[in-house]
């Protein structure tokens, strides 16, 4: 079934990204165009550059060569504006039990970039936070300290933080880690709904059982390069990744 999508929302052109002190770039000559409303699964072995690609898209890592335009902004000079419109769920986070932040406060942080410097959260921001908490089914946790929640609940809170700023793109790095099967199913359904509403989802995941029931685009990376980029049925993702020679288990 061919997918119908909007115009390009991520355009990466011959990008090289290098960490300070590294003897070679982590991303090498990566080009990728993602259209609005696409669901992209990024696979590949450990150290292939998957997380680096996500952080390059939202401007958190410096691009040494090439260009990247995301949501109409050049990532090189406008990274902060890009990040106000892009949600990014980081991999493997857990918080100390004494962390002095409630769930509601953490989710509100997702709005801070949009609110801007020297301004306080308004009604619209509080409504967005309440909506995000409801979407993840954690509204009753709003006043709980985040450090006292389970790993799975903390993961949901961080996802709600990203949804609170109504992102045009969601970059998700292992979003299903720490989640039980019920939570995985509900988040999977939520992501499918968001994609149907035009949100672009780019996901790095081990959990190929939790992909939406629709064709997805698979991008496989090896040693900092994209070695495969094609659409396939969700049930075939693991097989497609294995066909490139990288172990799906290492994806």
């Amino acid at each position: 079934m061919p997918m119908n999508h909007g115009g390009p929302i991520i355009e990466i052109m011959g990008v090289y990204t290098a960490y300070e002190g590294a003897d070679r770039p982590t991303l090498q000559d990566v080009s990728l165009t993602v259209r609005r409303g696409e669901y992209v699964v990024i696979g590949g072995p450990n150290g292939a550059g998957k997380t680096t690609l996500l952080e390059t898209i939202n401007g958190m890592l410096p691009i040494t060569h090439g260009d990247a335009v995301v949501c109409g902004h050049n990532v090189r000079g406008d990274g902060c504006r890009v990040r106000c419109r892009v949600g990014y769920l980081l991999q493997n986070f857990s918080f100390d039990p004494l962390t002095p932040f409630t769930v509601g406060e953490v989710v509100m942080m997702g709005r801070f970039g949009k609110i801007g410097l020297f301004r306080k959260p308004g009604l619209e921001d509080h409504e967005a936070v309440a909506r995000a908490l409801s979407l993840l089914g954690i509204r009753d946790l709003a006043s709980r300290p985040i450090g006292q929640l389970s790993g799975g609940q903390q993961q949901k809170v961080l996802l709600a933080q990203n949804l609170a700023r109504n992102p045009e793109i969601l970059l998700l790095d292992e979003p299903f880690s720490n989640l039980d099967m019920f939570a995985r199913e509900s988040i999977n359904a939520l992501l499918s709904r968001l994609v149907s509403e035009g949100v672009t989802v780019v996901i790095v995941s081990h959990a190929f059982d939790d992909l939406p029931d629709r064709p997805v685009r698979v991008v496989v990376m090896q040693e900092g390069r994209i070695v495969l980029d094609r659409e396939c049925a969700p049930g075939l993702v693991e097989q497609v990744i294995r066909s490139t020679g990288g172990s799906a288990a290492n994806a």
Partner: protein
Amino acid sequence: MLEFLIQNNIVCHAVEAMLFASIACAILGVIITQIHISSIGFTMAHAAFAGAAVGMFLSVNAMVTAIIAGVCVAFLIGPLSDKARVSPDTALGLLFGISMAVAIFFIAYMQTLGRGFSAMGLLFGDVISLYREEIYLLALISVVAVVFVVVLYKEITGIIFNKKIAESVGIQVKPVYYAMLFVIALTVALCLPIIGGLLLYVWLVTPAAIALQFCYRLSAMFVAAPLVAAAISVSGALAGLEYSLPVAPLTAVMFSVVFIIAVLLSPKRRVTFRKS
């Protein structure tokens, strides 16, 4: 400022100084303890010490050079931490070592020239013999600290929560983080010669640590820490002056006692015990 409450000028000045400095340090202490840079007190003390030594060597006002050295170090903490790819605490350690080396060099050199050195006094201020101008400066510092936290509250809380997440949600982390370090270091540099090291170190850490025993929200810590600091500091000043006891050590001991009581009474710890 508080003459309408306290008739005795010496007591009034001491209470005012303790009140203003404790509020400024306790508010910034919440940030310091949450981003783990408690050693900023020692580093700034030795930066001021080095500045004073240079001032003595050049025969200029040692207090002024002490503050200038403190401000220079305040400017350096953030960029040094970033450029050298070390934690802010390590950057503070590096600057502490450099400051100490500069101070010792000039002291030793002046001794070979047969010149005495008495800059140590700069590190041990005396709250019961302050000039009115120094009280005004402390009041200004506390206002700056409060305004800074209120104006940049969102950004500060985001950075305290997690710098990487703060960056990912669109906060301009680097300039705010540098500003945070600078305001903290500047406050320490300005308070140090007036208040002295002992109380400063206590104020920068203990009120926030006491507040953390009871507060589940950072916003509550920003209110509780200065309130606790002000209450204990004013009590310490009044008790010390009433019973002719040394004010700074007495207040420091009172803070430690309150901290121990807070740990024993903390609901957070009770929950942990029940779980295990």
